[in-house]
């Protein structure tokens, strides 16, 4: 049997989202290696254009479910469309980007196939016998090569940015297969009341030229204020950023958080102190021109992103660095 790869497409404002296109790109690679097809499923309402776009971008067949109860994402709505489709198509693999929606949805579907999800993958090896995915346990301090020894379908989600989508065609002649689906409101157990911004944001880090950010490694609210304050003052003013645990512990208000659930920044200079460099933080700082990382652990993942790395204790290093910066600015 051919080894088809099915991508569950997320969409926004009438277009497929980037993580889904990245998954489609990998699906094409995997299908090519095994002689299968790259398939996709779009669930929504009035989403014909999304389905067409996915067919043009490289899916051989796009299965489209259009229903008014699919206009708003709910796990039950999507599950009731996608689970029977997987039974019918019998794909070898089901892929998604490792997004919030995927984490809310895909294990619900995989569980009905008695399968776990190989989640948040950053790389893949494929040969005639098997597909092996790479993931990064222990906050990216290690890389694990994972093989799913169970029967198909297998499920995997892909870390954002790990599989570039640059190689997708623009005029692939994939077909769109419109499905009808019988849905009633009482089968959808999540009743969405509203979607809103998480809170008033009074701090705009996105346009800051210089950002000094601190992490849990600073140890306490007092140390955070003291050490980050010294750098800000030495620079003659810089915006203050933080990792998530810092705002979770209320050392700083929430709107200082940088990362996937905070702000995306692109300063000329970002200095990160006592921040490990988890992917959810790092996606927020990749647009920085120069990244300086100060961390006592030489293996901290933040050093993979940094322009300049300094290994050591923030308490010893920061006062010296602040002083040197202040002196340099005065001369």
């Amino acid at each position: 049997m051919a080894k088809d790869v099915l991508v569950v497409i997320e969409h926004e404002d009438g277009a497929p989202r980037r993580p889904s296109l990245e998954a489609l790109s990998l699906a094409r690679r995997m299908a090519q290696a095994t002689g299968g097809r790259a398939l996709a499923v779009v669930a929504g309402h009035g989403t014909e254009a999304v389905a067409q776009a996915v067919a043009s971008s490289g899916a051989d067949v796009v299965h489209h479910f259009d229903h008014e109860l699919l206009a708003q994402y709910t796990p039950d709505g999507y599950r009731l469309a996608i689970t029977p489709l997987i039974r019918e198509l019998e794909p070898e693999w089901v892929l998604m980007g490792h997004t919030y929606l995927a984490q809310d949805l895909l294990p619900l579907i995989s569980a009905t196939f008695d399968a776990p999800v190989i989640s948040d993958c950053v790389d893949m090896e494929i040969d005639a016998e098997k597909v092996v995915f790479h993931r990064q346990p222990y906050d990216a301090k290690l890389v694990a090569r994972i093989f799913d020894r169970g029967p198909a379908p297998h499920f995997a989600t892909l870390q954002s940015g790990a599989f570039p989508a640059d190689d997708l065609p623009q005029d692939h002649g994939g077909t769109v297969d419109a499905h009808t689906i019988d849905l009633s409101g009482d089968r959808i157990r999540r009743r969405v009341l509203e979607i809103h911004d998480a809170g008033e944001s009074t701090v705009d880090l996105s346009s800051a030229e210089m950002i000094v950010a601190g992490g849990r490694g600073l140890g306490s609210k007092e140390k955070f204020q003291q050490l980050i304050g010294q750098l800000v003052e030495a620079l003659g003013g810089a915006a203050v950023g933080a990792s998530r645990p810092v705002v979770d512990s209320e050392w700083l208000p929430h709107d200082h958080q940088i990362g996937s659930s905070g702000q995306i920044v692109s300063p000329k200079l970002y200095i990160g102190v006592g921040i490990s460099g988890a992917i959810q933080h790092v996606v927020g700082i990749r647009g920085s021109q120069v990244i300086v990382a100060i961390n006592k652990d030489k293996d901290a993942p933040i050093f993979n992103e940094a322009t300049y790395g300094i290994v050591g204790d923030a308490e010893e290093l920061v006062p010296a660095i602040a002083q040197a910066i202040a002196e340099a600015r005065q001369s």
Partner: protein
Amino acid sequence: MKILVAIKQVPDKNARLQLDESGTRIVETDLSWETNESDRYAVETALRLREAAGEGEVVVVTLGPERARKAISSALAMGADRGIHLVDPDFQGGDPLCVARALAAVAQAEEAPLVLCGTRADDDGYAETPILLAGLLDRPAVFLTMGVEQVDGGLRVVRELEASRQEVSEIPLPAVLGIQSGIHEVRFTSLKGIMAAKKKPVGQPTPTELGLSADRIGKAGRRLEVLSLAPPEKKSQCEFIEGKPEEIAATLVDKLRREAKVL
């Protein structure tokens, strides 16, 4: 309402990880351990729901070896009423689906209408156990929960979305929630709490008692095989600056001025 909270013991964030000879596992001796971050928020959330309702029972469950007993003790000291420790060797070494099967059996045996989990175990980092569990139990679930209250007919839940947005929804009970770090401030443990915890019961059901066959759980039941575990290849361009603090500071300032031209 009875609330079951699934907590996992994971290596301390600052632990130095070493690999064993097989190259597929970390060495567990001499590590320090803690309760997974988001799971502490899950325990806190359960306690607040119990307090808001003025009644109910909070039962914590962990799957792990003998050492994991300490995660239960900490939750009992925070105020949970009772513990369940899946310590039998047959439970150990499974993948997230094996863990979800064991937790599902406990949820059924306990007839707990609400199961709370964290979002992600910071060791393996799969971030899928709560939703697998919901799938196995055929219950509604919400992942990355940033707020929850009991309302007529179920729960009102706030779900974190990307780009600092949130979804507010209602789901019926029984349900499963994955609690996100930061939902509420986690309480400190009092000495009184620690003393009280010593008297609280901790059960150790076997797979058989939970109606689970050994080939569905633990090492024997797992689908996901770790072929190798290794430090990542360093592909970074990072230039490390070394020396005494003053030397480092001087070199850094020089580079920021001359090379990076940002000062």
